[in-house]
């Protein structure tokens, strides 16, 4: 009886302490995930990711997969991306880099799509990790979205094109502009959009403030730099500081692979820490960062067959060894 009571007491005490931890949001564990340092630099790093000042910083590599949670799903053509981050005069700079063999910077037809990249932060630094797909009702996210087509000038009329009727400059003929679609502005196109969301279907463009970004082509890669002051100018945007790390995730789109919207390559959440230390530097040898091998693409045909044969063999061997050991034990027990 006492034993039973003691056991139930143990369960009740543990559950009560757990509920207390939950209510006070006291997490006894710490994250050991990939961390990205936002290092301090003494000169303005600029928006050219191909510059030696950027390329000499040791990058952090993150694996990426297809987005398969919210429709439209798919993508995953980019399997790894690299991240570098620095800060200068209370401005955060984040540089994303990934391999993309085709430069897609036109979206002038319904079936063409542009290369793009995005960075997602929780709306409030230090809060619990929000849901990776656009956050959730009680944990909004702030997304910086760069599109390669938006940093190009507006495409003009093709030399072999013709116009039957030049429409009047009326909202009736420009419904996207009338709906205040920020991508339909005919002046002041900017490459980066500042977005906020609190769950699926709530993604909303907000004032860019001082958020800017620019992408450049380096060999067969995109290098995109985003920057914004530490202190946000609007709501639902985090303030960066060295007090605690902030969660961050990334997404990239390859327009040539018909990737757009939810069809993209996403990383999981990792952490970014603003630090007063100098960035770890190295000789600029970016080619070594992007070896020719492509993990999933490289293992095809014979490679897959060999892998499967080895694994099936290992499974059979494990069962056989287990049987043999039991037989031996039975024999020794019998003798």
């Amino acid at each position, binding site marked *: 009886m006492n034993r039973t009571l003691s056991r139930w007491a143990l369960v009740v005490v543990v559950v009560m302490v757990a509920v207390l931890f939950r209510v006070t949001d006291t997490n006894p564990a710490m994250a050991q995930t990939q961390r990205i340092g936002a290092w301090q630099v003494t000169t303005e790093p600029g928006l050219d990711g191909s510059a030696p000042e950027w390329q000499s910083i040791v990058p952090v590599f993150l694996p990426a997969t297809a987005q*398969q949670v919210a429709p439209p799903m798919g993508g995953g053509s980019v399997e790894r991306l690299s991240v570098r981050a620095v800060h200068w005069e209370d401005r955060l700079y984040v540089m994303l880099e990934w391999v993309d063999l085709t430069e897609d910077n036109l979206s002038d037809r319904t079936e063409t799509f542009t290369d793009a990249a995005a960075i997602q932060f929780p709306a409030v630094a230090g809060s619990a990790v929000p849901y990776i797909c656009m956050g959730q009702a009680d944990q909004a996210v702030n997304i910086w979205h760069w599109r390669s087509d938006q940093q190009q000038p507006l495409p003009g009329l093709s030399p072999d094109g013709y116009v039957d009727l030049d429409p009047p400059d009326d909202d009736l003929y420009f419904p996207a502009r009338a709906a205040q679609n920020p991508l339909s502005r005919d002046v002041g196109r900017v490459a980066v959009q500042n977005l906020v969301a609190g769950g699926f279907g709530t993604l909303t463009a907000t004032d860019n403030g001082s958020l800017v970004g620019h992408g450049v082509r380096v060999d067969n890669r995109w290098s995109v730099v985003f920057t914004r002051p530490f202190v946000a100018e609007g709501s639902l945007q985090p303030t960066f500081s060295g007090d605690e790390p902030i969660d961050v995730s990334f997404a990239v789109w390859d327009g040539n692979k018909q990737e757009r919207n939810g069809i993209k390559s996403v990383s999981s959440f990792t952490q970014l820490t603003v630090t007063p230390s100098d960035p770890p530097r190295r000789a600029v040898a970016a080619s070594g960062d992007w070896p020719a*091998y492509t993990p999933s693409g490289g293992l095809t045909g014979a490679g897959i067959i060999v892998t499967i044969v080895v694994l099936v063999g290992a499974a059979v061997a494990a069962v056989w060894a287990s049987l043999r050991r039991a037989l031996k034990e039975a024999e020794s027990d019998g003798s």
Partner: protein
Amino acid sequence: MGRDHRTLAWLLTLSVVFELLLLRTATRTLIHIPGTDRFETVVRLLAEGGRVSYYVAALCLVIALLLVGRAGIRTPDRRRVAAGLASGTFLVVAAAGRLEVVAWTTVGWVSLATLVTAAVAGWRGLRSVPVGLFLVGSVAAGTSVLGQTISTPLAGGRIEALIWVSEIFLVLAGVTAPLLLRYPPTRAALYAGVAATLVVAGSASSSSSTMSILLLWNVGVPGWLPGLAYAIAVGALTATLWSAVARGEGVVVAGIILLVAGGVGTISTYQTGLVLMAVLTLGGLGGDVFAEPPAAEVPNPAGVTVASPVGVS
């Protein structure tokens, strides 16, 4: 006291299962089911249950590791002393990391060292091969993260290839899981394993991205291998679990659950702690909490008696 320890083992294992299923899997996959937005309250309650389970599991884990540490002090057995040292060191460094007294990289490297120490101390020959393979994968994945903070020739893109290595060893660990069993898998377990292989292979071929994203978020690997590789590993793991449950090998059941929930690499001190407890448990060094019952209490392959599912102290 012994039964209290067994209760702790049950509570830890069950809370880890709930945390894994509710918090890490259900809340991330229910969105696939059309119309679940109508049951938002239910989904939120499930998520909350998963969060509480997480805290219960974390508390039980700390107590269990403390007990292993205490057992290491009270014995002349060198293996148990090493196990106690590993769990004690892990608890101290994880707490120091949480309080930001030591850097996260120090916590990471020390965590990996305690895992290796526990595995060496609990090495039981062929029976420990799956744990050894898992740990090789775990150390490779952990190094791929921690190694990027060092300005050495290892830093940069080359070290990322270690994730690739970790996946191979993770799959191999799953495939060789039957070696963990004291007795060979039952026939029903083998059927269950084949069925699990077919189901996972089917889902992988129809929606491999789902598998990739769940692997990345739950276990910490990107899922670069062909879907069939994971299917075979899951099949072998299912057969092992099924057989262990059927034959009352509770220590194996608990060990596998903790290992799977812990994941590969260094994700959080909670998950690394689960892996440490799993390695200790499967190495017969679970102390009073996950003590392996004497052979006489485990049913022989013919199956007569049913021992306590989770150890007897």
